[in-house]
């Protein structure tokens, strides 16, 4: 059994709510889900790195918003949005997300259009 330590972090409120639902449905804890996903990320990253393959790092940088789609596609040798989407799906990495405040502001803009 691996030794565990506590740490403090922050997480999107809505994401945590959804994670709790999944945990309840699968009879486990959010902590167990978090550990499984973090392990997947770490092991995938390390496995790619050990073979000199930087693709996962590129995709992770893109997912975290540190690399533009253009730069990511260039580094990966692909030239289409769909291929990037598929590689992200295969890597189990989320597409980059704008902050909730920006997304909510865009939702409000759309609501204004519909009520005008």
């Amino acid at each position, binding site marked *: 059994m691996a030794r565990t330590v506590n740490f403090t972090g922050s997480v999107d409120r809505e994401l945590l709510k*959804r994670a709790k639902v999944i945990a309840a449905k699968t009879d486990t804890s959010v902590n167990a889900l978090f550990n499984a996903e973090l392990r997947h990320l770490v092991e995938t990253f390390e496995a790619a790195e050990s073979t000199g393959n930087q693709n996962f790092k590129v995709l992770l940088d*893109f997912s975290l*918003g540190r690399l*533009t*789609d*253009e730069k990511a*596609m260039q580094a990966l040798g692909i*030239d*289409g*949005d*769909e*291929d990037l*989407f*598929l*590689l*992200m*799906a*295969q890597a*189990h990495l989320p*597409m*980059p*997300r*704008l902050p909730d405040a*920006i*997304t*909510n502001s*865009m*939702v409000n*803009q*759309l*609501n204004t*259009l*519909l009520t005008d």
Partner: protein
Amino acid sequence: MSPLNGIALLPDSGPLITLAYADALDLLFLPGWQVMLVDAVLHEVTRNQTPTSDKLAAWATAVQIPVVSTNTFEHLKQAALVSPPKRRRNLGELAIQETMSAFALKVPPTTAVFLFEDHKIARASFLVPDTCQKISTRAFLIFLEQRGFIDSSAEIERRAIKAGRDFSSLRFPP
């Protein structure tokens, strides 16, 4: 080309691909706005054989989506007659920028919503006229959910990711 009912909705390639994977392209019609496609965007999503290219081409034809012609795409076609076309990653965005400008210069200007994936919006490479709005696919789906057009925006995104994973295991074997 002007929208029939006042507001035009023009998706970029990313939202089209996401919605195609989620099998939810018709969601674009739910607000009742005139859905249009920019010629270079349609070209981008159909030029290569991909898991969604046929579906997108068939959908655009079946629902008779108006296609906005741009000088950008025309220039590319003319250039291709002289020499083999070089792949331009930002061709669709150039054509969208041209369309935004054309809409803004109309009298009266056309009100338009342009849909992009989050990362394209983050790049902030567009000069967006006052009558045009740059909206993310996620914001559009949340808007549809809030308006009661769909039950769950997260469910649409989940379907796209799941379908993408199913396809990616075929297209990109480890």
